[in-house]
């Protein structure tokens, strides 16, 4: 009789341990370059792409020719997202601009914040708070000599339980004056995921 009670208690305790009583998820910090968990585009893919593109651009002979001894003014256009996924392309271009800026090879302007520049200049000129001798007036900003642009595209194939996903980042650097493409490169990423035989 006692044995049965002990056995039942043991089974109940084991069941509780297996199912788990805790409702809070386990959270921990992981390395930025973690192993892939899906076949979708993941942060580590974007990081690798930005690093590869920055290295390629900084070491390209064509860029050296175009740059010469000067530090040309560059603008970075957000990449076009031609995939079915939502990817923050502005964040990708921000990361690339940051890496290029740190190299010291280029100077940058940012067309995306021009509206804010006008607001500031307008406020300095019209609100009466700023010393007018020190106020920044429009018409003095540097002009972009080159701009960086690009796109992200994907090809997705599914065969049975296997999903094959291919991504391609392509980027170009264009000289605004001559219209020539100074640099272009691609980064390809291919991922495969296999669904389990059982489960939902």
């Amino acid at each position, binding site marked *: 009789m006692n044995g049965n009670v002990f056995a039942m208690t043991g089974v109940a305790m084991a069941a509780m341990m297996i199912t788990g009583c805790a409702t809070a998820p386990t959270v921990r910090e*992981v390395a*930025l370059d*973690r192993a892939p968990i899906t076949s979708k585009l993941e942060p*580590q893919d974007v*990081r690798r792409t930005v690093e*590869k593109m920055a290295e390629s651009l900084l070491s390209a002979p064509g860029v050296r020719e175009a740059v010469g001894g000067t530090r040309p003014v560059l603008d970075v256009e957000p990449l076009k997202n031609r995939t079915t996924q939502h990817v923050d392309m502005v964040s990708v271009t921000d990361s690339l601009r940051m*890496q290029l800026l740190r190299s010291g090879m280029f100077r940058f302007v940012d067309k995306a914040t021009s509206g804010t520049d006008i607001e500031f200049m307008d406020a300095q000129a019209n609100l009466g708070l700023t010393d007018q001798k020190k106020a920044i007036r429009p018409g003095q900003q540097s002009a972009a000599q080159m701009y960086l642009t690009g796109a992200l595209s994907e090809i997705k194939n599914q065969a049975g339980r296997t999903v094959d996903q291919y991504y391609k980042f392509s980027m170009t650097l264009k000289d605004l004056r001559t219209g020539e493409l100074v640099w272009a490169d691609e980064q390809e990423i291919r991922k495969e995921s296999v669904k389990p035989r059982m489960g939902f």
Partner: protein
Amino acid sequence: MKKRNRMLWTAALAVGLTGLVGCVETAGTVVTTDHQTGSTLVLEDSTRLKGQVQVQKVNYDEVNGLKRVHITLASTRHRRLRLHYRISWFDANGMEIDPDTKTYRTLILEGRDSVTVTGVANSAAGVTSKLRVRDLEAAD
């Protein structure tokens, strides 16, 4: 008594195996190259990786005023290897330059094949490169 001992041994073995399976070695091979003196130091911290990959050749040059390193890795195995590598850069004072921007990249090495990986310093201040190779399993 004999049966009980056998059960105890089996349980101990199971616990031991579980412990072993849970351990992933994150140590790897490190190749440090000083671009000023030309000296290269290879440290093989993982015996497992040491038996799979060998550092064959290290070359370095300069492009657009930035240091560049080329390291040839060769597989000693007949099967495909999946590895991770990262090339980081240090200035003349030994300080790492932008450590967060240098990422681990995937390297798929075919059996008995060799591949050259290249890294470019992201700043003209970078004078020492460090390649770190690790097993793909070491990634979280």
